[in-house]
């Protein structure tokens, strides 16, 4: 009996890979943040060349754009006011972030820690006012050391091996040039300290940048983003640039497995998917027309990046429970999002309007079976199964609306599997 079990286990395919449709959707969403188009899917399924597909996506400008969107989200954190965005010069900052996709991660991290050039916009966002730069320190620790040091702000943290004293020593690195900071005892601290109590040698921030390698934390962040779980293989830390890192993860057997990562779209992916399904360009134009009449919101729309970030913020609020930090929770959708996608009149107007995806599909194909294929491919990246073809009967134009609605609301749309 036992040997039969062993034989059975040995006979199971050890690295069964996912099918072509799943791979195409997974890799397009993970590398560019957007859904694959039906024509791209068909071409890929015909060629089956996975390595080429990956290179094609990595070289597309969309990959760098998605990378910048992700870093923007990590760096500006989840709460911002419009004033923050203008102070950060988000347009220029985003353009700089795009260039870092193919530059050494260590250099980018160094620039962000020390606040060189465009990277200074990061510290500018988080170290405003007269408060100690706690937020900037927390983010630096989280992003580049992979350490969550929040608890030690108020008390020693035995489990994390960090004292309150050490916390404030670390925060002091970011209060340089302003005569130190006030710590938890209200005392001025001008002397930054590493977590182990050592003093930095030379210029503190430059010295801190030497101390913070950044690559292990960035590798873990990407691994978690792609795989939906922690625990990156140490070899990922050798990847020179974010692009190399992404390429390595995507090539791993874990990523290509049939039951690969299952995760809800992140907010950037949701923003793009939403824009594709609802033809966002038109939605924007519609919003812009209204905004021009309202001087209070007008200035949000003046800058393209600011507008995108606002849309991103909206997408995040839809997909994450309110007020949650994406680093802390795995989002699973909210009642608010479900109600909106199922039953929001304005969205449904966009759904079915002349320039919505549905109308485009209907205009492009004429046979009902082709239309059904095109709808499935556009929204969930695969053609309907035989059973689904029987179930999704097309009687009239309303049938297409019903099918489209079901596709946009189904779990398969919202998850990256």
């Amino acid at each position, binding site marked *: 009996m036992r040997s039969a079990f062993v034989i059975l286990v040995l006979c199971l395919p050890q690295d069964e890979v996912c099918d072509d449709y799943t791979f195409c959707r997974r890799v397009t969403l993970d590398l560019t943040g957007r859904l694959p188009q039906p024509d791209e899917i068909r071409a890929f399924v015909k060629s089956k060349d996975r390595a080429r597909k990956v290179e094609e996506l990595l070289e597309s400008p969309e990959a760098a754009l998605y990378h910048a969107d992700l870093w923007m989200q990590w760096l500006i954190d989840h709460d911002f006011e419009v004033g923050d965005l203008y102070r950060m010069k988000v347009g220029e900052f985003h353009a700089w972030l795009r260039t870092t996709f193919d530059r050494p991660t260590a250099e980018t991290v160094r620039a962000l820690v020390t606040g060189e050039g465009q990277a200074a916009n990061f510290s500018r966002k988080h170290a405003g006012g007269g408060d100690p730069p706690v937020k900037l320190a927390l983010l630096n620790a989280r992003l580049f050391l992979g350490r969550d040091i929040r608890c030690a702000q108020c008390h020693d943290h035995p489990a994390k091996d960090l004292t309150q004293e050490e916390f404030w020593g670390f925060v002091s690195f970011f209060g340089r040039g302003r005569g130190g900071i006030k710590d938890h005892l209200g005392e001025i601290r001008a002397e930054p300290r590493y977590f182990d109590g050592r003093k930095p040698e030379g210029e503190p921030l430059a010295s801190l940048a030497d101390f913070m390698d950044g690559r292990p934390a960035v590798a873990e962040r990407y691994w978690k983003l792609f795989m939906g779980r922690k625990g990156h293989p140490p070899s990922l830390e050798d990847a020179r640039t974010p692009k190399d890192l992404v390429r390595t993860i995507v090539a791993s057997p874990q990523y290509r497995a049939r039951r690969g990562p299952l995760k809800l779209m992140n907010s950037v992916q949701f923003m793009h998917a939403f824009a594709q399904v609802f033809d966002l360009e038109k939605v924007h134009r519609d919003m812009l027309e209204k905004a021009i009449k309202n001087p209070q919101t007008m200035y949000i729309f003046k800058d393209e990046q600011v507008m995108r970030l606002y849309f991103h913020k909206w997408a995040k609020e839809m997909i994450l429970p309110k*007020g949650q930090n994406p680093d802390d929770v795995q989002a699973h959708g909210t009642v608010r999002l*479900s109600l909106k996608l199922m039953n929001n009149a304005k969205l449904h107007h966009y759904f079915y309007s002349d320039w919505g995806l549905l109308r485009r599909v209907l205009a492009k194909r004429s046979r009902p079976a082709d239309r059904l294929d095109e709808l499935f491919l556009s929204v969930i990246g695969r053609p309907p199964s035989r059973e689904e073809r029987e179930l999704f009967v097309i009687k009239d134009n309303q049938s297409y609306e019903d099918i489209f609605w079901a596709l946009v609301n189904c779990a*398969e749309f919202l998850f990256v599997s």
Partner: protein
Amino acid sequence: MNRRDFVRLALGTGIGALTSKFGIGAQEVGGGRAKACILLWMAGGQSQLDTFDLKPGMTPFKEIETASGARISEGFPRLAREMKRVSLVRTLHSNDPNHATATYLLHTAYRKAADVEHPHAGSLIAAELGEWTDLPECIVIGCDPQAGAGYLSGEKGPVIFDKLEDPERRESAAEDVKPLLSKDRLRKRWELLSALDARFAREHEGRAVEERRRAYERAYKVLTSEKVKAFDLSREDPTRYGGTPFGRTCLMARRLVEAGVRFVEVALGDWDSHAENETAHRRLMGILDPAFAALLADLAERRLLDETLVLCMGEMGRTPQVNAAQGRDHFTRCWSVALAGGGIAGGRVVGETDGMAVKERPVTVQDLFATIYKSFGINPRKEHTTPGGRPLKLVDGGVPVGELLA
């Protein structure tokens, strides 16, 4: 345990006491009478000196006598007649003059911290008292309460709807729940969706898939429930509530509470009068007065007021000094809150100020929230454990204001 289970258990064990207007009493802890709450959120910070705590020479508004003897602004002629039901706290104070963080404080009883997200009080109350309706348990209309599900699970967070707009415009708070489709067509779509989801669930299981399913099932329950009519005001006459969008939202809040929603927050914005304070306050009091008064009278007529706590408050007060733009700025040394119904004794005034600061009986934000939880029979010292394993009390410190409790 959902409401139906509770009813079954209550009937089964013979402890069911179907005495309440709402059908079944919630779990009783310490004898609170409130079963639901309507929060009228005065976003931006109302000027205490022009509304509920007038001082001669410091406000352009006259004081008027009320049914309870408490003197309030002439901007509230209708509310004055309902004041026997209302108590005032005039000495609420904090030290947070920032809108966003103060709003968070006045929704959670906690200062915003980097290390933990605290839940909206309405979500906590609903979680403590258990499921009660097909509708969302905590609904916010017309503002960003800054607080969400916090350390509770995602689907327990407040469901936030946009501000109710002019009746002529199609957009409204109820937008997402107003049936777009016939029941048959929605059911048909739900069947297609269920088929897709069943296939997906066969391939992928786990908590994420499960939680998304729960959110969708709750949404479908909302859309197909008879109770969704609570959002529909077409058969109501909003004139009594002043006929304004805010008045209509208050009327909606009453209907939602009747339908079993635990916590409804309705916002009236624009109190942040850094310029032209008098004009702004005259206009806003004109909106608040009929809506607040009608809400109290309506709840009382329906014998709902005893079980519905009504709160009217904002995140801060406004300065006694008038600035160069004839406005008042942020002020946190003392401001006023109005409370009624739900186990709150009416007609009382707690605390005294001299217009500049507290003279007697200061009340902290924690005291206020301890009072709110107490009115529901919830122990404010009760601890929850965050997903990170940290124990947190509903309210850290604070003593219920005994003078307010009936």
